[in-house]
């Protein structure tokens, strides 16, 4: 095995494990329902002049990615909660790290599992939707006038996948109980949303949207897709919060992913 490729072994094994679970396959399939709905929308708009009002715009793709957030959440909990927690429970970290595998490769391998599945419900259907639009429209006009869509979809999907998987892996490394990790993650997302809801109601403004991790991602997404920002928080602030989350996650992982637990 060439050096630096060990992570791929972890990723492949992880992907196979989840693909073997029927419940997970059902969840994946279900998460493609919005894609089917949008496909029908695009087809109708392209083939029925009276349905032209539902013709897709650039914002349609932004909305589509926003709608996939709920599936991103459930897949993250399903796949991500146990990624490191289960290894900790089984004392497998020691075994992994006694192999010619660095900690970074271990984390990268685990992260790649979650990122792959997240891209399967964000980037992949969004890109396919773009291709569907081109094929149903029978011309490249839409694509030519919205050339930025391809990189926008790609960047937002990857930013989302990276942020979410970094946060979930960090939480997963904090416990050996995957259920607890799932709740922690749900807490992070929904509590911060609730917090923002209260602050917005109290202050009458949305400049504190950066307290919510979901809103930070939404704000960045709006900026990437060049649509009006939904909150008054400047998007660089949201980006900074996302970066801070990823950095904090990396620090937690650096401290927690060890072959031997250091008890001071």
């Amino acid at each position, binding site marked *: 095995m060439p050096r630096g490729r060990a992570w791929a072994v972890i990723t492949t094994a992880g992907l196979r494990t989840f693909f073997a679970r029927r419940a997970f396959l059902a969840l994946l399939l279900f998460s493609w329902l919005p894609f089917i709905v949008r496909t029908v929308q695009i087809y109708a708009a392209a083939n029925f002049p009276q349905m032209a009002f539902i013709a897709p715009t650039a914002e349609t793709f932004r909305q589509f990615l926003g709608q996939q957030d709920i599936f991103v959440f459930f897949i993250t909990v*399903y796949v991500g909660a146990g990624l490191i927690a289960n290894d900790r429970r089984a004392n497998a970290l020691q075994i992994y790290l006694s192999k010619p595998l660095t900690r970074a490769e271990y984390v990268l391998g685990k992260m790649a599992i979650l990122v792959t599945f997240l891209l399967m419900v964000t980037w992949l259907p969004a890109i396919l939707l773009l291709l569907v639009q081109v094929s149903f429209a029978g011309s490249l006009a839409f694509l030519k006038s919205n050339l930025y869509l391809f990189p926008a979809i790609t960047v937002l999907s990857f930013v989302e996948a990276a942020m979410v998987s970094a946060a979930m892996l960090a939480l997963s490394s904090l416990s050996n109980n995957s259920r607890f990790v799932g709740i922690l993650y749900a807490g992070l997302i929904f509590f911060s949303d609730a917090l923002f809801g209260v*602050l917005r109601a109290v202050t009458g403004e949305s400049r504190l949207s950066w307290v919510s991790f979901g809103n930070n991602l939404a704000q960045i997404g709006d900026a990437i897709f060049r649509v009006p920002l939904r909150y008054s928080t400047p998007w660089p602030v949201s980006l900074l919060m996302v970066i801070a989350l990823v950095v904090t996650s990396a620090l937690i992982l650096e401290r927690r992913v060890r072959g031997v637990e250091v008890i001071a």
Partner: protein
Amino acid sequence: MLWSRRSVFLGLVVGGPVVLAATLRLAELSGLLFDPRRPRPAGVVVYGMMIWLIYVRFLVPVLGVFYGTSLIADEVDDKTLTYLFTRPIQRSAVIIGKYLAYLVCTILLLLPSVVIVFFLVVPLGQGATIGAMFPTLLTDLGMLAFGLAAYGAVFAFVGARLKRPLVVGLLFALGWEPAVLIAPGYLKRATVAYYLQALVRHEMPQDSPASTLMQIFREIPPVSTSLIGLAVIVGLGLWLAGRTVEVREYVLEQ
């Protein structure tokens, strides 16, 4: 259960609203945070919003999901279930005993948080006084305790029945319930939130399109119907949970 690391952590989560309430109080005293050009919402309104957004829609369902699903699932994962199921007591008694422990612990975690938030937030701005609002606090405490009981019972059953109860629990509490509450028709009666939210005396905040839709399609059953509904949910949930553990074989992975 109360002094486990997890409970301590969840205690911190439950302390989050207290921190928020304290921050708002400090912000008011210092003049920061609030725009003087805008009218400031009254303390009771803010308190009501926190009850809705933080406690009713988030903490109560999430505590119910976490602890309720953990009752049996934790024992299975930790392989300690054998010790409980080879004692001369009914298996259903085990799960009901653990459920009661869950209820006591979550009430002890959550209700003090609500009380502190009440005393911090209600005096904010102009509005009703603490004395005038005190009966509302008691109603809220009862409502939240009922919510914990109902969600706990439902997820005790889910945890006893399923191998991966957390995802199903979150799907139910954070997916199914909000979706069904928006939809017109009778489907909403198959939720805990329908009965629980009817007991909330505060105005529902409209912080999102979903909340607005919920407001439009909201049916508010009478208090007696809600209480009976919640009692039925608790009874049914616990009966199903007890029945499940009596007949199910738990094969602990070696």
